[in-house]
């Protein structure tokens, strides 16, 4: 998977490094600000109230 992505990144080496970093940052941001906030209430970690 990772080598496949690497092979398909266009441009010379330095550009590909930049692209890879942008990809990683983008995915981390997507997880942090979209996926995790959505998933968190569904997980049994942090309920503090009684019913």
């Amino acid at each position, binding site marked *: 998977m990772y080598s496949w992505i690497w092979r398909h990144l266009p441009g010379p080496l330095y550009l590909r490094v930049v692209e890879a970093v942008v990809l990683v940052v983008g995915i981390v941001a997507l997880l*942090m600000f979209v996926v995790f906030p959505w998933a*968190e*209430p569904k997980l*049994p970690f942090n309920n*503090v109230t*009684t019913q």
Partner: protein
Amino acid sequence: MPRRPMPPRPRPVDPPTEVIPRVEDDYDDEYYDDDEYYDDEPAPKDALPPDSLARKTVRGVGEALITMGLVVLLFVVYEVYVTDLLSAEKQQDATAALDSEWSSNVVTPPPADPNRKSQLNLIEGKAFAKMYIPVFGNDWKFSVVEGTTDKHLEIGPGHYKDTAQPGEAGNFSIAGHRVGKGAPFNDLDLLQSCNSIVVQTQTQWFVYRVLPMSSEVAGWATNPKSKEAACTGVAPLSTTLGDAYAKTVGQEIVVPTQGEVIAPIPHHVGAPVPADKQARLLTLTTCHPRFSDKQRLIVHAIETKSYPVADGFVPPEMTEG
């Protein structure tokens, strides 16, 4: 022929014992001595077999597993650190809104018996009081919002709707996160009996003190701690208010379905005591153990003092700790 005894053979002379001085040597040195030898070995050149389908599959699965592991790690980082940042901002906004509200609207001075009269206008998601726990340090302060949904609790500790207001008879109950989201109640398990929890509304300060723990209830009268100044007004409720309060102690751990801990009289849902005879309690709830929602950690406290809010006045209890 008779055998003549052989003369003893001359024994070889022992060479003088050579004393070899002990060499203090690092274990590592020996280990590294071999380095060069290994370095000389030619590296295997492109010995990888051609990519078969099986190889690709195994590699793909491996990479997927590593990726999932990283995502889980990231989630922990999110839960423990990132939510703190997001919540800190919301808590700041709520506090700023509260401060501007307090400074802008003029209130009539609290009535003569203020504990029972002043009714706050509580709006869901809006902060209405500030909360301090002096033993957690000067910087431990949170604005308490109305409501206990996930959205409310992201802002700060949340007041259970329909429970008593600060200073009211009954059970002023607050939920708060223990991990992430500002983690206001992170150290709730460390509260000891008689520790103060101070709640400030626009017009009043209320000082609550943690009730004696279940282990202290029996010997409270003879416990030297009960004579301390901090414990004035604190006694096991079963001795002062009767059996209805027998289960109301400083700290308890319950299952999430035990909503009765925030009842006006904890553990008594159909309150057998009339409202005007109920104690003025504060109950804090959070998750237990940390990182789990299996149980709830509950802390009960009783109001021991109240002060009107005045310019420059800070209750003496605020410096305990």
